[in-house]
């Protein structure tokens, strides 16, 4: 006996409403925009991109005027994406909350009752989260580029000769994509921990605390260079490498690779850094789906 037999459906003589992925996505879209926290976090995300760009742009302009530093178009582009590391935290919190708010409000019970396919439920949520984060970060990067242009264009002296061809693409599309991946990764943490506090701690710990602690290893000498290598593969460091697109610019050199003693720690190229970030997102999200699919909802 199967509920999907068409004959059975017609026998019911009333419209049958089928559960579909598109329906689940529409539902998540509706949920996303009916929560105040979404608006707050997205406005914050755009604001952080703009403010970071203004600050770094001003600093760059100031330094260029003081020290006659060569400034190129690559500086405008990389300045526009300096908000990404802060943006990462904001969209991370959004990603955690999209999942944990379901548990804190108990609405997970109705959500999983109307859609008992838990992986589909998660995928729909992740897709909407990624789309919303992408769009907000795209707006953020556009605004930030405007800010960067305002602050830096007067100081540009070398034009586009030192600018990697991929840089505009990475800034305009890569940064929003990286933000979307970050949000989905954070959603995975939220799904595993089912607690906003726990999820946000994970995000803050992995994105900011852990890299700063591991950074200290470079003071310990050659034997601990591997820790710096590991650090370079953490999401926030991978993001920094990725959005730099290999450009040698002012904003990039602030977080540049260093040698530890005489050893050169592993530093992925910007392309591989993007892949590493993708791998983080996929792994954490997959773990979140696995936990959600398996654990009881009491």
């Amino acid at each position, binding site marked *: 006996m199967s509920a999907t037999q068409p004959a059975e459906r017609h026998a*019911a003589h009333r419209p*049958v409403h*089928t559960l579909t992925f598109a*329906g689940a996505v529409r539902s*998540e879209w*509706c949920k996303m925009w009916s*929560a105040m926290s979404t608006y707050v976090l997205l406005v914050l995300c755009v604001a952080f991109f703009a403010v970071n760009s203004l600050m770094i742009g001003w600093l760059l302009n100031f330094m260029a005027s003081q020290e006659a530093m060569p400034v190129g178009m690559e500086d405008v582009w990389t300045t526009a994406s300096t908000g990404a590391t802060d943006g990462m935290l904001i969209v991370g919190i959004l990603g955690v909350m999209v999942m944990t708010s379901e548990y804190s409000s108990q609405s997970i019970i*109705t959500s999983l009752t109307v859609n008992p396919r838990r992986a589909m439920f998660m995928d729909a949520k992740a897709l909407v989260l990624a789309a919303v984060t992408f769009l907000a970060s795209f707006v953020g990067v556009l605004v930030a580029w405007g800010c960067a242009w305002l602050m830096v264009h007067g100081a540009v002296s070398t034009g586009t000769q030192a600018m990697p061809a991929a840089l505009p693409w990475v800034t305009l599309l890569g940064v929003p994509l990286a933000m979307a991946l970050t949000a989905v990764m954070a959603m995975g943490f939220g799904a595993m921990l089912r607690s906003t506090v726990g999820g946000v701690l994970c995000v803050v710990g992995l994105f900011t605390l852990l890299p700063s602690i591991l950074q200290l290893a470079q003071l310990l000498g050659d034997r601990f260079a591997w820790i710096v290598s590991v650090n370079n593969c953490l999401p926030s460091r991978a993001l920094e490498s990725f959005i730099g697109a290999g450009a040698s610019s002012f904003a990039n050199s602030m977080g540049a690779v260093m040698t530890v003693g005489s050893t050169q720690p592993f530093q992925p190229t910007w392309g591989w850094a993007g892949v590493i970030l993708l791998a983080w997102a996929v792994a954490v999200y997959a773990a979140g789906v696995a936990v959600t699919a398996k654990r009881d*909802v*009491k």
Partner: protein
Amino acid sequence: MIEIQGITKTFGANRVLDDVSFVAANGAVTGFLGPNGAGKSTTMRVLLGLITPDHGTALIDGVPYTRQASPMSSVGAVLDAKCAPRNRSAYAYLCALAYTNNIARGRVDEVMDLTGLASVKKTKAGKFSLGMSQRLAIAAALLGDPKNLVLDEPVNGLDAEGVKWVRDLCRNCAAQGRAVLLSSHLMNEVALTADNLVIIGEGRILRTGTVADFVKEHSRHLLSVVTPDAGKMHAMLAASPTVRITEKPVDSGYPADARAFEIEGADFAAVARGFAAHQIIAYQFVRQQVSLEQAYMELTHGHARYVAAQPAQQPQNGGAR
């Protein structure tokens, strides 16, 4: 139709469901009764795929819930009154649920009218009273015009009118051929609404059957007597082996020689004549009916998980009746 077969579930060392099996048939309201913590909610959550059982299967019209093509048309469920996010409007909440199963927005307006929530459409669910939340949860359950209804304590927090409304809703749905599974910890509520009964205690099914049978079986009469002539009364009734006499504590206000008894299985008129013939004095001679609530309490006594400690001494209250 809802079929639950041999469900067993353990949380840690605690076996919350132990081989639970029953059927909630189409066209009938099945009352699912049990004390708090007996496993009613867990059973319902197993049925809806929220909790995976260690053993056993739960089927809805022959198919596990998680494999239903249109979950909201197959089951409408109220599992927890406070399921709506506090910061979302009632309307947005219902829309988000409806969209998953491709139910049109018009149906959301319909169920809001049906549950009397049309006037609070834009109100945030966090501002709802328990009764309104309960109505919202029922509205959500009705969105898919479901073939089966699963309601976990739906009358909690409802006013008298609301309780009657839920009762009528259950009766109407059953009359339309749907299966309704209604949990409650109140026997009287279930007796008024349900056709069939499933009683659960400490995760085990204690009894299944029809409400009518349960009522018939437990509608025995009792004779409540307060008398100083206990010896004479025992002697008089000793000849009838079917009569059961239980001594009870005497209410205050009776003479010091008074003793109170409950007499079961005796004919009221015959005992009254016997008392007269044997010149037995009665301070009280009252015919009583065992209430369903009492019968249910007797059945589940010892299977209740959360029982208040008995006070050391029975309070002396009441007076001569």
